[in-house]
């Protein structure tokens, strides 16, 4: 007859297999920290390029001068600059995510690529792609002030959607991004700050918390 401990061991193993096979567990907290730093840096670069454009003054401030408005060539240059910076930030941040997550997978001896990873990515990409295209539509219609909130909302939805296949904590990060995006869609004109908070600070905070929870120095030995 199987002993008591054997049964407990079986149950524990079953749970571990269920988790491993349905969740992508090697997502590294460090990737969030570095992606956040890159995002903050990008926001700083854009701010230094054209700080007048941002902040409530442009939309609500009492001291609103006609000269403050960017027009024609300057406006176009500004958009090109912002989009380019955004694209570079995205690529560098993704690079960090892939690097740290790979490293984490190697350390924990988890598979780097399997159906779970693929499922998570597909679920992440669907809302992201929809959001990206919606932003293009906003730009097309000249509704620039809604772009920042919309990116955050769709990014949050993507995280919530993908969280079913990875560490559950991602779900709450997604909800925070959605809340931030919704708030920013009411109080428009703070696009850059909102981006810096949503993609920068939240990622750093969350990344640190997840790193300490799952990969901290005391957990390295396992």
């Amino acid at each position, binding site marked *: 007859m199987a002993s008591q401990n054997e049964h407990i061991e079986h*149950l524990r*193993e079953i749970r571990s297999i269920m988790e491993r096979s349905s969740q992508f567990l090697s997502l590294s907290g460090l990737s969030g920290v570095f992606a956040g730093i890159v995002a903050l840096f990008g926001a700083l670069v854009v701010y230094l390029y054209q700080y007048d454009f941002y902040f409530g003054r442009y939309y609500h401030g009492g001291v609103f001068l006609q000269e403050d408005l960017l027009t024609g060539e300057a406006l176009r240059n500004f958009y090109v600059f912002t989009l380019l910076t955004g694209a570079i930030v995205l690529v560098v941040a993704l690079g960090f995510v892939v690097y740290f997550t790979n490293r984490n997978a190697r350390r924990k001896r988890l598979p780097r690529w399997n159906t779970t990873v693929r499922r998570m990515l597909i679920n992440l990409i669907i809302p992201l792609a929809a959001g990206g295209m919606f932003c293009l539509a906003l730009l097309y219609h000249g509704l620039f002030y809604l772009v920042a909130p919309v990116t955050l909302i769709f990014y949050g939805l993507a995280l919530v959607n993908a969280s079913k296949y990875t560490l559950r904590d991602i779900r709450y990060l997604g909800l925070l991004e959605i809340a931030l995006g919704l708030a920013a869609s009411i109080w428009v004109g703070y696009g850059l700050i909102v981006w810096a908070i949503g993609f920068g600070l939240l990622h750093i905070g969350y990344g640190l918390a997840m790193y300490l929870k799952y990969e901290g120095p005391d957990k390295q030995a396992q």
Partner: protein
Amino acid sequence: MKDLINKLNKHFESRVRLGVMSVLMVNDWVDFSTLKEALDITDGNLASHIKALEGVRYIEVKKQFLGRKPNTSYRATLEGRTAFEDHLKALEKLINTTP
């Protein structure tokens, strides 16, 4: 006590079978190589246990071609899910009642 043990499903006696069912409980179709990777066992070992589970209709099989490569996937049937859940319940009960 004896009653409790009788409720444990004989088809789930091996660790591999428990493992296969665990993976299939939380996923839809899963192919052979993914199962092998998740459980870290050899082809032959996995194949024989899969055949046993298939024999009692706890899992169903789908064979298809991905390009030119044959690909076999498995999924837990309703029968298999119910049986596995009952087995887990029996295990838990056994643990809780034995001092």
